[in-house]
């Protein structure tokens, strides 16, 4: 097997160390790393020296990715709820129960009363199978995953503007871009191997850096300009930059004429967004906006980098479209080191989207509404009448579950009880379900509500592929066996399908699944395991001899002409008022990952940040007479948590920030479930909270 060096000790030590090349489980950078295994245990993780992303380096999470794999509290046996308690069972019984109950619910209340949440942490092959299970076996388009909560706005917005919803450039192209506009991305914390490239570009070759972020993130230290907008005013400042660019004649007239459409309308809309007007809305001084517009427009190789700070708003799609407008206006897309780069968060969130774990599309963004597409899938899958109406999104699934419309839910590798907004309501929804299946590597907060828990193999225990943020499809490889009776997700899903009487899901290996994906998916047409050695291929890769695509929209946009889609500024759904006077935004920290399932089981990482905190500006702290480390009660209209204060100028006066990793003080109890009308992404980045002291005169209140 390529990529695997197997070393079985022949001598008295009985040492059997193996080192395999695989892909990191954490962020979308997709670093190439080696895992060392010894007697069924992962004992180390090291970077690949020649991998185009890692290049001999990793972030602290990658370096420590060996530890959580072998934890003793891994799920090792299927669990079935009996008399209110989860009890161990055999696979036969568990799979029989899952298939029988899901079929029953589908028969009784219709396929739309079933829903499926796939996972951006599992492989492409597994996402494909989950999508196939939902559609081919249960005839439900109610399949979605956490991309809904991170980059749904990107998939919708960039697809409409450019014809493709992915990062336009490659990570190594950051090394010769000469201007970075970073907004809503704490890049050094969330995509360290991309953030570091920005730092190097600024420090070592004087590239320009404009950071537009309400928080004082690490990259601000390196920025030429920090635009510190009020949360949720992004459309306004982006329109303002375009206003300046057009007023000063810095737009790329020829590019606009040849490669885009809709410019007249854009000019009309942004005319009102003068720097003075924008200052009123956003708080960004007019002169800084003007300077930023000039720097960005005049740079030759300019990149926009953005992430959740742009997408997680009720205007998420408008924000994304506005950034696309800005890039097209200046001719900054379609070239090497020049483009619009949404950084995808999860290791395989790009792949989970590519695989059609979304309610509106099959693999490769082929619409479920398209009859020809359906017929193609029907032929290969050996089924008839695939559903043509788009299904429910993550946020809608929980709404419908609460109302009793969705009755059966099958979740793989997601933890909505902690990760979804207004999580108290999510928990109610989970309780309302007639039948909940959770498939994971640990007993998550969500799994505690399950009727059946299925133990899955982790990333070190199976073969497959992940697609990183730069569209690079690359291998993961099995280093050790899964613990106990845990099985790879693809095997489990196939097992469920089989028991439902579906014969079209028998595979001997993930490689065989990829062959089927390639057959059905034009952008993955040339992806075969033998071609993914050693460091993968970037889609679009339509044929077996295609070398892959480092950057998109070369010469022409994927949709033909780039479409300007101007937006007007709309305020966030819930802003501070007298009672709830602070603005809360949520996010992650460098040391942890999402709901902490892996990083809180990793000694070095958990030691660094062992508990939750709320970031509070020193002036607010002084006014409220709270000190650093003091526990306060933070409440929104949806719930409250008790949490320690961290006093820092990272947040603006009147704003607070809470990382959402910690179940003990779960930020998502507070967040607002209001969603963007098209992408249905919730507004994690803005809601109103109040902060109350818990200790007054030595008494707990």
């Amino acid at each position, binding site marked *: 097997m*390529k*990529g695997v*060096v*197997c*070393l*079985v*000790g*022949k*001598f*008295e*030590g009985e*040492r059997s*160390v193996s*080192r395999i090349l695989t892909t990191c489980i954490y962020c979308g950078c997709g670093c*190439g790393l*080696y895992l*060392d295994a*010894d007697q069924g*245990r*992962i*004992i*180390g*993780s*090291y*970077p*690949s*020296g*020649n*991998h185009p992303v890692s290049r*001999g*380096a*990793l*972030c*602290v999470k990658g*370096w420590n990715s*060996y530890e959580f794999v*072998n*934890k*003793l*509290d891994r799920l090792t046996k299927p669990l079935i709820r009996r008399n209110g308690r989860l009890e161990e069972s055999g696979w036969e019984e568990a799979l029989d129960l899952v298939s029988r109950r899901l079929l029953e619910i589908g028969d009784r209340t219709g396929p739309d009363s079933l829903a499926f949440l796939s996972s951006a942490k599992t492989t492409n092959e597994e996402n494909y199978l989950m999508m196939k299970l939902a559609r081919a076996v249960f005839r439900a388009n109610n399949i979605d995953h956490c991309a809904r909560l991170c980059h749904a706005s990107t998939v919708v917005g960039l697809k409409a503007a450019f014809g493709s919803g992915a990062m336009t450039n490659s990570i190594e192209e950051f090394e010769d871009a000469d201007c970075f506009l970073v907004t809503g991305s704490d890049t*050094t914390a969330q995509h*360290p191997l991309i953030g*570091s*490239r920005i*730092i*190097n570009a600024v*420090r*070592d070759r004087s590239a320009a850096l404009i950071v537009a972020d309400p928080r004082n993130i*690490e990259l601000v230290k390196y920025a030429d300009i920090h635009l510190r907008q009020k949360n949720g005013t992004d459309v306004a400042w982006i329109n303002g930059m375009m206003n300046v660019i057009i007023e000063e004649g810095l737009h790329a007239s020829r590019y606009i004429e040849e490669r885009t459409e809709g410019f007249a309308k854009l000019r009309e809309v942004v005319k009102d967004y003068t720097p003075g007007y924008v200052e009123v809305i956003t708080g960004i001084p007019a002169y800084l906006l003007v300077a930023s517009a000039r720097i960005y427009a005049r740079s030759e190789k300019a990149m926009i980098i953005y992430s959740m700070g742009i997408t997680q708003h009720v205007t998420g799609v408008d924000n994304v479209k506005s950034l696309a407008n800005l890039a097209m206006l200046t001719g900054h897309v379609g070239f090497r080191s020049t483009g619009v780069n949404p950084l995808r968060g999860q290791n395989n969130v790009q792949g989970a989207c590519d695989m059609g774990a979304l309610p509106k599309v099959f693999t490769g963004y082929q619409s479920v509404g398209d009859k020809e597409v359906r017929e193609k899938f029907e032929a290969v899958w050996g089924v008839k009448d695939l559903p043509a109406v788009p299904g429910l999104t993550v946020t809608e699934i929980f709404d419908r579950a609460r109302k009793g419309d969705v009755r059966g839910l099958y979740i793989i590798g997601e933890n909505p009880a902690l990760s979804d907004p207004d999580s108290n309501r999510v928990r109610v929804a989970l309780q309302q379900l007639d039948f909940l299946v959770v498939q994971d590597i640990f007993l998550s907060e969500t799994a505690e509500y399950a009727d059946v828990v299925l133990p899955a193999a982790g990333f070190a225990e199976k073969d497959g592929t992940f697609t990183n943020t730069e569209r690079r499809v690359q291998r993961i490889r099995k280093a050790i066996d899964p613990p106990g009776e845990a099985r790879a997700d693809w095997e489990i899903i196939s097992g469920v399908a089989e028991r439902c009487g579906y014969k079209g899901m028998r595979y001997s290996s993930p490689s065989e699944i990829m062959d089927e994906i390639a057959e059905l998916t034009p952008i993955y047409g040339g992806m075969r395991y033998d071609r993914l*050695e*050693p460091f993968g291929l970037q889609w679009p890769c339509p044929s077996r001899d295609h070398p892959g695509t480092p950057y998109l929209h070369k010469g022409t946009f994927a949709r033909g002409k780039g479409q300007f889609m101007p937006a007007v500024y709309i305020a966030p759904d819930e802003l501070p008022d007298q009672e709830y006077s602070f603005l809360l935004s949520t996010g992650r920290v*460098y040391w942890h990952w999402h709901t902490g399932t892996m990083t*809180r*089981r990793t*000694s*070095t990482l*958990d*030691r*660094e940040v*062992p508990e939750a905190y709320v970031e509070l500006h020193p002036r607010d702290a002084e006014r409220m007479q709270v000190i650093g480390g003091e526990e306060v009660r933070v409440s929104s209209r949806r719930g409250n948590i008790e949490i320690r204060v961290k006093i820092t100028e990272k947040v603006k006066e009147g704003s607070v920030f809470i990382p959402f990793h910690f179940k003990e003080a779960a930020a998502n109890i507070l967040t607002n479930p209001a969603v963007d009308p098209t992408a249905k992404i919730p507004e994690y980045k803005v809601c109103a909270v109040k902060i109350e002291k818990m200790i007054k005169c030595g008494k707990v209140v």
Partner: protein
Amino acid sequence: MREGCVVEVGFSEPVARYLCPVTVAAVADRGRQGWVHRSTIDDINMNNRILLKRNINELLARSAEAREVYLPLEGPGGDVQFLPLQEPKELDNLNLNYDQLIIPPKNIGFPQLESLFEFKDGEINPTVPVPSRHILFGLRACDLKGILFVDDFFRKNFEDIYYRHRTEGRLTVVVGCTSPSPNCFCTSTSTGPFIEDGFDLQLVDLGERYLVEVGSENGERFIGEFEELFLDASKDEIHHSGEVKVTAAKAVTLKVDFKEAIRRLTEDDVPREIYEEIAERCIYCGGCLYVCPTCTCFNLFDDMKEGEGARFRNWDGCVFEGYTREASGYNPRRDKCSRAARRYEHKLKYDYQETGISGCVGCGRCLTSCPVNIGISNFIEQLTGLDSKQ
């Protein structure tokens, strides 16, 4: 307990006892076994031999019949890894002209994660590895220097039985470096590209053949086992090897004023701005210490379920805030700047004061593995390029 104790690894035995009671107890049980890991040229009769390159594969394949043979093997994508030979076919991937291994071979004796003991119902069972005979073939001089340094740490003032069992059956074969990476500066630290002592065998590339320098009785015995594969070296060949060493040294183009750096550090003459700049730029990945051939810090943690579990140790390091945080929450190195300083002080001051040897072997890995290009060579350049305060 999810989190292990926050430890600061020192040099003294009392500290070691405190850290690893089981280790020390186990050592006491078995008694201290004498183990000379260093032999110098003075100890033995220097005896140069010749190994034809076409005989290398046979030598390695036959050696592997009775030992584990670790070699630099080129894997997918051109990464060279130091791994034990499993089957002779893998010798096709042997690459003795590599510029640098990503990870120094310290992990053979000191893995990133290892189990120390298992416990169940109050009973404790040490998980001491069984000793193994092995050859480290194709080491670079700097990496052997690193290994010898780590040997001292784990065996000089106290004996760590885990480390001893993983390393005591070791034979070291250095292949002197003629293909340095651009980040290497071993000529400045006097740690390469060839090593003067501490090796069992050292090979000098003479084109079609290697001159084999014998550095220990162990090395001599090994040659004796495969006598027919070695020839006697002529005076010309010995002379040629000297020229090769000179040329190899010239190939190391990165030079730093190492002595001056040590002087400045030991005299506490480092402008704070240098540390401040490093602390600001650092993204706290820990890469520099994980890849450092002489970093030996570890943390301890327990993994436990229903009263049953194991205690582990894993690589740790001084750039992390939690590393020096005390149980009270107080941290003597709380700010990033003093943590950045700590790393350089450790390598260029404390190690030097403690052992007379600096903890830097000039391999340049801390630069190679740094996502933001910090590296000790840049630090030294910056420091020695600045005027001393005196």
